[in-house]
Structures are given as C-alpha cells and as structure tokens.
C-alpha cells in the first residue's frame, strides 16, 4: 500500500530537448532553468494577461497534497500554440513539465502538459522559417 502513492506520484528532473523559454514580461530571474515533471489534477485554469496560469494538486511522497501553480504565456501566444481557454478544466489529470522558482516552492512556468488522453499542450512554438 505504501507503494500506491509512488505509482500515482511521479517526479522527475531533466532537460526538455526542444524547449525554448518563453519571453515572460517579468523575465527569467526567478526560475531554475532545470525542468521538473509532476503528475496531478487540475483545479483551476485562468486565461488572462499578462499570463495564463494553472493550479493543480499533486500528491507528495507521504500522501499529502501539494497545491501547485504554474504560468504559461499570454492568451495570444497560447492561441498560436493551439491552446484555448478551455484547454484545461478542473478534474483533468495532467503530467506537467515546468521550470520551478529557485526556492523550490510549488510555483512554476509550464513547458509542456500531457493530458490523460495523451493530448500534448506545449508552450513552445516551432521556429518560423526565416525570411530572405
């Protein structure tokens, strides 16, 4: 039974192969550049400027709940990346890859979200072709 949380809780640290940090209006100084991946349940998604943000709950190693919040870019950028204000809804199970503030508090910046049905929501935009 003690292994059950381990089955539903997953945390990994690694580098995303293709991530290019979004240019945030507040800059990058608050975040550790390393990526962290957690699996949890969405509790709220707020669509607005200057950044959208998602709240989600993650079970920790002891079975407790950690309340996370992580930002994306602004709505205009997120539309370019295929998101809408309904992309995330309370109750969605999601695996979230993000950068976390340097103190280690549960505050992050989303790089990628994989939903339970396999749908991938990325905050990275493929580079556009260069002009001549």
């Amino acid at each position, binding site marked *: 039974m003690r292994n059950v949380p381990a089955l539903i809780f997953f945390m990994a640290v690694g580098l995303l192969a293709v991530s290019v940090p979004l240019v*945030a*209006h*507040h800059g*990058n100084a*608050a975040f550790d550049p390393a990526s962290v991946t957690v699996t949890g349940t969405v509790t709220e998604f707020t669509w607005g400027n200057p*950044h959208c943000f998602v709240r989600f709950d993650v079970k920790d190693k002891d079975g407790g709940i950690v309340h996370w919040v992580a930002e994306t870019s602004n709505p205009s950028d997120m539309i370019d990346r295929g998101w809408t204000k309904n992309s995330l809804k309370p109750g969605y199970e999601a695996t979230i890859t993000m950068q976390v503030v*340097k103190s280690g508090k549960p*505050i992050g910046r989303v790089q990628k979200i994989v939903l339970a049905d396999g749908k991938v929501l990325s905050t990275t935009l493929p580079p556009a072709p260069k002009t001549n």
Partner: protein
Amino acid sequence: MLKHFMASTIAVVAVLMVPSPGRAQTAQPVPAPRHDISGIWTPADGPGAGIGGTGSKNMPEDGKPEHQLPYTPLGLETLAKHKPGNGARMVHPSEINDPEVISCEPQGLPRENLYELRTTQILQTPLSVVILYEFDKIWRVIWADGRELEKEHPEPRWFGYSVGKWEDDYTFVVQTNGTDERTWLDKAGRPHSEDLLMTERFHRVSQDRLEWTVIIDDPKMYTKTWVALDKFPMKLLPPTTDVREMMCSNEEFRAYHAAMEFLDPDAKDAK
C-alpha cells in the same frame, strides 16, 4: 488537317512543360503600390520576432560591447534607476520597477514599436496614417497632410505627436516628439527624455513586405543617434484577418500576481 492540329497541340504542350528562363518557376513578388503602406502586417519571422524582451531588437541589452549604447552621464544615471526583468541587467521579479510590467502603465512610444510588436493594422486616409497595434490595443495617428512637426506641445503624450511624409513612392518617413518621459524606451530599461525625436521609416519593399526602421535621437540621454529597429520585416496578412485583443486588465493582473506570489521573493537569493 487533324494531323496538323495534333502536331500543333503537342508542340504547345511540350513548350509549356519545358522550364524556361523566361518563365518564372516561383512566384515573383508583386511590386509595391505607390504611396501605400496600408494593410494588416505581422512580423515576417514569426509571431515572437517582435517581442524584444531584452530591449531594442537591433541593440539588445545582452552585454555585448557592440550593443552598448552611447549614453550621456544623465543617460547612464537614469538607466541605473531602471530595474528590468529581462536582459543583462535583469533583476528578480520582486525588484522590477518597469511601470508597464508592475502596474499596466502605457508603454508609449518608442517602446510600442520595440516591445511586443505583433500583428499591426495600418490604415490610410487622405490626411493621415493610423496605426492599430495588437498589444494593449493601441492606436496612433500620424498626420500626413503636409504639416510640419511642432517643436513645442501643450502637454507630453504617452504616444507623442507624429507627422509623416513620403520620401519616395514606397518610403513613408515619420517623426515623433512630445513623448512622455515616464516611459522606458524599451523593455531593457533604456531611458528617453522629453527631448526624444524618433524617426520611423516604413519602406514597402513589395506588395506583401514592409520594413520598419526606428531611429533614436535624444541628446539628453545619448551622445549620438542610434538605430533601435533596423528594417524589421513585416509580412502582409489577408485583409479579412481578425487581429487579436491583447490588453492589460488590472483585475487579471492582480489575480496573476497573487497566484504566482509574485514569483516568490524568497527565491531571490536562492541558488
């Protein structure tokens, strides 16, 4: 007769199938219309190309010697007071004092051209050119009725006072002064004074390509003129394009800052 017709048809088809130097293999740019920069334009190198998080696209605040600006002593002194969140001088978010970032203040000109330059609609009337910016849903009027730019104005404006003239058939040159010195020149915190004269050159290269140049002349802050945006390429979008809304709402702003604990001041000194 039939033989002759068949032979002629085959000959025509053969000619059409053979590549010819005289026949273009790819679409050639359609020439620019005369005295016309109207249209819905977007950064040609992608939607993020005009964001300018580290400041002026042409002279970013990246620590490279070639991007050091020619500051006057007052320019340096003012720069030191500006605490940006991006670029080589970036500070922790809790220390940023950028008025646009910390309280949704208008970013004004020239910054509207240098930070978050996104899809932009340009309208022309017989007397003026009007620019509609996506970011902050800002509009500005450039008088093009032959008037001269006044040197004095009753008050400063966030977006200043602008007058434009056609330099040639395809180049519209705009001068702007009377800007509000509370604004930062760019996202990196470069300063400007009330004496700023901004020159913009809109050069329509072809029907679907526009180059946008921004030149800064502010003798209080800089010892010489410098180019902040150099022939920045914009491509024409279909006239039916629905330009998005992108506004700073105080309520959304407060909700975001509260939720993110504004990015954790405790993390300021964390390694």
